[in-house]
């Protein structure tokens, strides 16, 4: 069977929400923050369908935060790929719920007074059963993880740290060179397996990447729903 017969893509609103539009697979490009509910409707109307959501950090954790935690809680079989650029990119560089504390953006000109979310920790706490983080400097590892996440039966979440030279690079880090930003991503991250042998000092300031969490025990929502209702029958 053709992959197109099985996979449906949903894009949120933001730069990252456009990703699926350029892929030759049935695509629903939706409203800001609401990709996961749309994806839930697609999944529940045919549980054999694999649904992949492309979302930004603002889309997923800001305006869509409530849908995100409830999607994870249900453990519905959707793969959420969150493109994390630490900023509202599409609207021109405003502060996001993921902007580092003290980071200067257009709407945090004196430095972000807030504390950012950790999307992976949130996903795990809410009930997601596959959680991973990579960066755009790790394309091979990332694509392998995306394939694993799609195969996983349950709510899977992949956070992808990205360079975003136009907004976050320029505004938060004062660096507009994509190559330099990719080097920074490499330098600031450490693989979760490598981190096991490191001291606390060595890990300070490092972001863990790799497959962070995996649980095959928790019931998947869509297939379990259909299993449950198959035993019911209407009668007058």
């Amino acid at each position: 069977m053709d992959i197109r017969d099985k996979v449906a893509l949903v894009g949120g609103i933001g730069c990252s929400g456009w990703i699926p539009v350029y892929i030759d697979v049935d695509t629903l490009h939706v409203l800001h923050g609401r990709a996961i509910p749309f994806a839930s409707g697609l999944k529940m109307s045919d549980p054999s369908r694999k649904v992949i959501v492309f979302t930004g950090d603002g889309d997923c954790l800001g305006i869509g935060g409530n849908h995100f935690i409830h999607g994870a809680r249900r453990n519905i079989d959707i793969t959420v790929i969150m493109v994390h650029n630490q900023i509202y990119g599409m609207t021109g560089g405003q502060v996001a719920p993921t902007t580092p504390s003290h980071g200067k953006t257009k709407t945090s000109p004196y430095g972000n007074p807030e504390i950012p979310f950790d999307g992976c920790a949130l996903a795990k706490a809410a009930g997601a059963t596959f959680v991973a983080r990579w960066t755009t400097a790790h394309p091979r590892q990332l694509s392998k993880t995306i394939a694993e996440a799609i195969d996983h039966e349950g709510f899977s979440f992949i956070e992808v740290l990205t360079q975003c030279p136009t907004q976050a690079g320029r505004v938060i880090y004062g660096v507009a060179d994509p190559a330099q930003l990719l080097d920074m991503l490499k330098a600031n991250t450490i693989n979760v397996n490598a981190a096991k042998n490191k001291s606390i000092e060595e890990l300070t300031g490092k972001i863990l990447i790799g497959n962070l969490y995996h649980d095959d025990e928790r019931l998947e929502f869509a297939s379990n729903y259909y299993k449950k209702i198959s035993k019911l029958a209407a009668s007058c």
Partner: protein
Amino acid sequence: MGQEVCQGTVKIIQGNEAIVEAAIAAGCRFFAGYPITPASEIAEAMAQRLPQVNGVFLQMEDEIASICAAIGASFGGMKACTASSGPGISLKQEGVGYAAVVEAPIVIINVMRGGPATGMPTAPGQQDILQAKYGSHGDYEIIALMPSSCQEAFDLTYKAFVLAEKYRVPVYILSDEIVGHTREKVRIPAGLKPVERKKPPKEGYQPFKAGDDGLLDGMPAFNEGYKLLIEGQLHDENGNRAAHLPEVCAKLTERLCKKITNHADQLVDIETSFLDDAEIVVVSFGSPARPSLRAVKDAREKNIRAGYIKIRTIWPFPEKKIAELAAKAHTLIVPELNIGRMVNEVKRAVAGQVEVVSLPKLGGLLHTPGEILAEIERRATVCTR
């Protein structure tokens, strides 16, 4: 699996339950909602009934998620609906506009209560009729049907699914707390079939290419090999965004509106009584229709030439038909459970040819027949003097 809806029977059920039975008879297999008075019984009955017919009930985290999930399910291949009341319907509005622009056939049930804000949770209202048409931003059109009884709640809900598929548009049922919570006899007709969703031909398929009537021909589902791009930005006939192409955007906006307004004559659904020689006509919709008919009958007893119009399709507003029906009358009375909203549509329809009187009722109460009769009598004396 047993018979899905017990057809050819008579049941004593709530208006809210009648909506659920009609939806299932029409082939609705997906409901997403969030509890709210006075619409909760719809979610409760859907939760009970849908799994029995292999359908999906989801209680979502909020009303925004509910309408989004319903649109997702609609493109997933299911007939889908959602239901709520005042505050929840407000939350859904961005989704309504999205459904309109991607031409998703969904049914939205608003069991209207008094507003704004948390308003009067357990009392009826008709304050959201304009919201149904104008609630989301931008130019678009919807269809809205208003039941005044449990029977009409059934009949119009079935019809809502028919219209949603035919016009590829969100269709509202504007019910209210009275219809929703009244229990009365509902005849479930025999021979109701699930509404058909036609599959367009795959060869050279363009998802947003309409016929001369502005309508899309059928609707494919995801994962059927159509290569669908469903885009919330204004788009071309293939679904590609077109926000940079003024002509394409203008054409789409016009089509989305005209595919409904150009069919207003086919969509008219009006019931009339005593109109032939009527001088004073009560123009009603939803719950006030029932005391209106009583008042008109009582006026006839008193030899007043009163007449009765009940509008079931409130959007698109049947302005031509109202103008035609009202031509012989000198006065129209418009009772409604709001500050006086639709009276302006009636005025616009008759364009100064007929006196139009607003009879608003606020506070979560329904007009009594006596109140409407008193207004009829007042207008009758004014004219005979």
